C-alpha cells in the first residue's frame, strides 16, 4: 500500500520563516491619526504603545539626514520646529500640480515647484526640512512606523496588510496609497473603503441586519455609504463623499475667524507656513474644546504680537454650518441614488474623530430621524474593520464585503464631452468594453483620455490617464475595430487593455498616469528605500514562488487520488519522488530551486495529464452522441467544491 499523501490546500502551504500561520495587519491611514490593528479569531485588537495610545498622529518630522520621526514626537515638534514637520499629507495623495490652485494658501505645506522633468506624472511634492518629497514617500514613512509598531507588539515580521482608503478616493489617490504601502515593505492584500471597514466592525459586533448608513467624517475626507447587511454579507448599495472635506476644514474655519480678529486689531500681516500651522493648531484646540465646553479663550502669537480670541459654541456652529450642511446634502444625494427613504435605514454609524462635534451629531440625527450609533470608538473602528478583513483574507471567513465604484468612469469624446463607461455605484470588480475606430486612412495610433467624475465636460472631471493605442494595422478610416476593456478590480483600481477586433492584434497600451508615480519612479524609490527594501522584495518573490509551487504539488496530489491507477508503479514513484523534491525546495530559501523543481514536476506529469484527459473524454462520450452529452452538461451547473 502506498504511503498516505499529505495534501495541503493549494496556496496554504506553511511558510517556514513566518513563524506559523500567516498574519496580516489592518491599517487605517488617516489624515490626522493612523491606527494599526490585528485580527485574532474573529475579533480585532488595536496595537498600542507603552502608554496605551492606539492613535499614531499622521505627522512626520524629517531630520537633516532624511530620517523620519513619526507620531506623537513629530506632532510635538510641530509647534517648535514647524519647518521640518509635515502633517495632513493624505490630502495631497494622488493630487497633481493642477489641483494646487484650489489648495494653495489653505494648507500648511511648502510645495515644490512642478518638476522640470515631468516624468513623475505631475504629482505634487512637498518641501520639508530641506528635503523634497512626494506624498507617497511621506505616507510610506507613516506606514513604516505602523508596521514597526505591529512588529514590536506582535514580535514577528509583518509583510501583509489591509489598508483603508476613503470610499470617495479616486483612482489616483488609491494608487498612491497602494504605492506608499509597497514602499513601506507591505504587500497590500486589499484596499478597503473606510465606511465599509467600519460597517464590518459594527455589523459583526452587533449582528446588525438591514440597511445601515455609515457617516464617516475624518480629518480630511468625508464619506457616506449605505449598506445592506445580511448574514455576514456587507453589500454597499451607494456611496458618496468629498475627498477634501473634513475636520481640517473645521480647524481652518476657526483659524480664519481668529486671524480675521487679529487683522481688525493689527491690520494686514504676512503669514508664513509656520504661522499658518500655529493658527490651524489653535483652531483645532478651540474646536475640540467647544465639543464639551460652552465657551473658551485662545491666544495667537505672530511675530511676537499676541492676540486673545474668545469663542462660544453658537459662534463655532455658525462657522461650521456651511461645511456640515455640505455633508448632509451629500447624504441626501446618496439616499436618493440608492432609492432609499431615510425611514428605511435601520441604523446610522458615526465614524471619524470629527463626528464628536455636537453639531454634526445633531444634523445627522435630524436627517435620518434617529440617534446615530457611536459605541465603538470612532477613531479606531476603521482599523478594527481593516484588521478583521485582513484576518478574513488570510485565514478565510464567512463574511463578504461587496463594494462599489464611488465615481463614474468615462472617456473623452468629440468636443470634450464625457462618455460614461462605468457609472458610479456599480459593484466591483467590473469590466466594460468599448469599441473605437479610426477616423483617417492608415491611422496607426490613437489617444484616449480617461476621466473620473460626474460632470458632462471633460474639463470638469478629473483626468486619470492618457492612453496611447499603438500598432493598429493600417486600414481605411472606420474599418478598424478596437475594443478597449476598462476593468476596475476589487481594490477600486482601474486597468485598461485593448485589442484590434478584425485582425486580433493586441494593442500596446501606454499609460501615462495624470497624477500618479510612473513605474520607473516607483522602482527607483523601492530601490532607494531602506536597505532592507531589497530583502523585502526577495522575500516577496520567494513567497510567491512557494505559493505557486504549493499549488502545483497540491493539484497533482488531488489528481493522483482521483486517477492514480493510470500510472505504473515506476511512474508513480517518479512523480511522488519529484513531489517530495518540490516540497523540499519549498522548505528551503532558494526561489530558483523552487521554481525549477515545480517546472520539472509539471513536465514529468504531462503524460499523466494526457491519460487523464483521454479517460475523461471516453467517460463523457461513452458510446453516446455528443449532443446528448452537451445537454447533460448544460443541465448540470453545480457549484463546487
Amino acid at each position: 500500500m502506498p504511503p498516505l499523501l499529505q495534501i495541503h490546500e493549494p496556496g496554504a502551504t506553511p511558510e517556514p520563516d513566518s513563524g506559523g500561520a500567516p498574519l496580516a495587519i489592518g491599517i487605517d491611514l488617516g489624515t490626522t491619526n493612523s491606527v494599526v490593528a490585528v485580527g485574532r479569531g474573529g475579533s480585532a485588537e488595536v496595537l498600542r504603545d507603552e502608554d496605551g495610545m492606539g492613535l499614531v498622529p499622521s505627522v512626520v518630522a524629517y531630520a537633516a539626514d532624511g530620517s523620519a520621526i513619526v507620531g506623537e514626537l513629530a506632532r510635538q515638534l510641530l509647534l517648535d520646529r514647524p519647518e521640518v514637520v509635515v502633517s495632513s499629507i493624505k490630502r495631497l495623495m494622488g493630487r497633481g500640480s493642477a489641483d494646487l490652485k484650489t489648495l494653495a494658501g489653505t494648507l500648511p505645506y511648502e510645495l515644490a515647484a512642478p518638476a522640470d522633468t515631468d516624468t513623475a506624472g505631475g504629482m505634487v511634492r512637498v518641501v520639508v526640512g530641506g528635503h523634497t518629497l512626494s506624498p507617497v514617500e511621506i505616507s510610506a514613512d507613516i506606514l513604516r512606523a505602523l508596521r514597526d509598531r505591529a512588529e514590536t507588539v506582535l514580535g514577528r515580521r509583518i509583510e501583509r496588510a489591509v489598508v483603508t482608503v476613503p470610499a470617495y478616493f479616486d483612482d489616483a489617490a488609491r494608487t498612491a496609497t497602494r504605492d506608499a504601502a509597497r514602499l513601506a515593505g507591505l504587500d497590500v492584500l486589499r484596499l478597503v473603503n473606510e465606511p465599509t471597514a467600519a460597517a464590518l466592525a459594527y455589523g459583526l459586533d452587533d449582528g446588525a441586519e438591514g440597511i445601515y448608513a455609515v457617516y464617516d467624517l475624518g480629518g480630511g475626507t468625508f464619506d457616506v455609504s449605505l449598506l445592506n447587511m445580511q448574514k455576514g454579507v456587507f453589500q454597499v448599495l451607494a456611496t458618496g463623499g468629498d475627498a477634501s472635506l473634513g475636520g481640517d476644514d473645521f480647524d481652518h474655519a476657526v483659524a480664519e475667524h481668529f486671524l480675521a480678529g487679529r487683522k481688525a486689531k493689527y491690520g494686514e500681516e504676512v503669514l508664513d507656513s509656520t504661522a499658518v500651522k500655529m493658527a490651524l493648531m489653535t483652531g483645532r484646540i478651540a474646536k475640540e474644546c467647544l465639543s464639551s465646553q460652552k465657551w473658551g479663550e485662545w491666544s495667537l502669537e505672530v511675530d511676537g504680537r499676541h492676540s486673545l480670541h474668545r469663542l462660544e459654541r453658537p459662534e463655532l456652529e455658525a462657522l461650521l454650518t456651511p461645511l456640515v450642511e455640505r455633508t448632509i446634502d451629500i447624504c441626501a444625494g446618496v439616499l436618493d441614488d440608492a432609492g432609499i427613504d431615510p425611514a428605511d435605514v435601520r441604523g446610522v454609524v458615526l465614524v471619524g474623530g470629527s463626528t464628536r462635534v455636537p453639531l454634526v451629531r445633531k444634523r445627522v440625527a435630524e436627517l435620518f430621524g434617529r440617534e446615530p450609533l457611536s459605541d465603538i470608538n470612532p477613531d479606531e473602528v476603521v482599523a478594527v474593520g481593516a484588521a478583521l478583513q485582513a484576518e478574513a483574507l488570510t485565514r478565510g471567513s464567512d463574511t463578504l464585503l461587496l463594494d462599489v465604484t464611488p465615481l463614474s468612469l468615462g472617456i473623452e469624446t468629440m468636443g470634450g464631452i464625457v462618455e460614461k463607461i462605468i457609472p458610479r455605484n456599480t459593484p466591483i470588480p467590473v469590466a466594460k468594453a468599448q469599441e473605437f475606430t479610426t477616423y483617417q486612412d492608415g491611422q496607426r495610433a490613437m489617444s484616449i483620455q480617461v476621466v473620473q467624475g460626474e460632470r458632462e465636460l471633460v474639463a470638469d472631471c478629473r483626468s486619470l490617464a492618457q492612453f496611447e493605442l499603438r500598432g493598429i494595422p493600417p486600414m481605411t478610416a472606420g474599418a478598424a475595430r478596437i475594443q478597449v476593456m476598462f476593468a476596475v478590480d476589487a481594490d477600486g483600481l482601474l486597468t485598461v487593455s485593448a485589442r484590434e477586433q478584425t485582425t486580433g492584434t493586441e494593442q500596446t497600451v501606454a499609460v501615462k498616469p495624470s497624477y500618479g508615480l510612473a513605474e520607473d519612479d516607483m522602482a527607483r524609490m523601492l530601490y532607494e528605500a531602506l536597505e532592507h527594501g531589497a530583502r523585502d522584495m526577495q522575500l516577496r518573490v520567494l513567497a510567491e514562488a512557494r505559493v505557486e509551487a504549493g499549488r502545483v504539488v497540491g493539484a497533482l496530489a488531488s489528481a493522483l487520488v482521483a486517477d492514480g491507477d493510470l500510472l505504473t508503479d515506476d511512474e508513480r514513484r517518479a512523480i511522488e519522488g519529484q513531489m517530495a523534491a518540490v516540497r523540499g525546495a519549498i522548505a528551503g530559501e532558494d526561489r530558483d530551486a523552487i521554481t525549477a523543481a515545480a517546472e520539472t514536476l509539471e513536465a514529468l506529469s504531462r503524460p499523466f495529464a494526457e491519460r487523464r484527459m483521454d479517460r475523461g473524454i471516453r467517460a463523457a462520450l461513452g458510446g453516446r452522441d455528443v449532443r446528448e452529452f452537451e445537454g447533460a452538461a448544460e443541465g448540470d451547473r453545480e457549484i463546487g467544491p
Partner: protein
Amino acid sequence: MDGSERRERMGHGFEPAPIATAHGEAALAACWSCFGPVRPAILFCQTCTAVQPPGQADHFSRLGLDLGYDVDAADLDRVYFQHQRQLHPDRFATRTPRERALSQSQATALNEAYETLKDPLRRADYLLHLSRDAATPEGCNLVNDMELLTEAMELREALAEAGSPAEVRVLAARAADDIRRCTSGLSDAFAAGDLDVASRLTTRLKYLRKLADDCRTRRLQLSV
C-alpha cells in the same frame, strides 16, 4: 406559438454553445491547474478544486435562476451572495496570481449578471436581446410608436412648465405609477411570449425612467 414553446426556444440556441460540437474532444476542457478533464461552465475543478474561468453562460444560468422576466429580488440577492461567497477575489487573496485573476473574472461576470437582472429595464432589454436575433445589440429595439412619442412629448412639456416642486412631485408620482404598470405589463408579455408587446413596453419603460430622472433633476433645481 404558446408561451412555453417560446420559453423553450429562448432557453436554447441564443448563446454560443459552451463547447464546440465539431470535435468530440472539445466537449471537455483541461483544468489549467491539474490538467485533468473539467466539464464546461463548472466553477471549480472536481479533482483539484482550482477555480475555473467563467466561460460562456447567460446571466440567468450563471446565477442558477430560471430564464424569465419575473425575478424575485430576495431570491436574486440570495443566489448572488451565495456565488460571490465562493468566487469573490477576497476568497483568493493569498492564492497564486492566476487564481486571483480567474476569481476576478468570475466575480466580474457575476456582477454583470446581477446588475442586469436586478433592474427591471435592463432585464427586459436583456431578455429581448436573448430571444431575438443574437446579432441585435442590447437596447436596439426601436419601435415606431406614434402614441408613445406623443405621450412622451406631452409629459416633457408639462415638466418644463412645472413651476413648483409640488407640481413636479405630481408628475413624478404619475411616472412612478406608469413605471409600475409598465413592469407588470412586461411580466405578462414575457410570460405570454409576446415579444412585440414586450419590446414596446420596454421602450416605454425607458422613456418613463428618463422622465422620472428629469423630474428629480427639476425638483432639485426648483427647491434651490
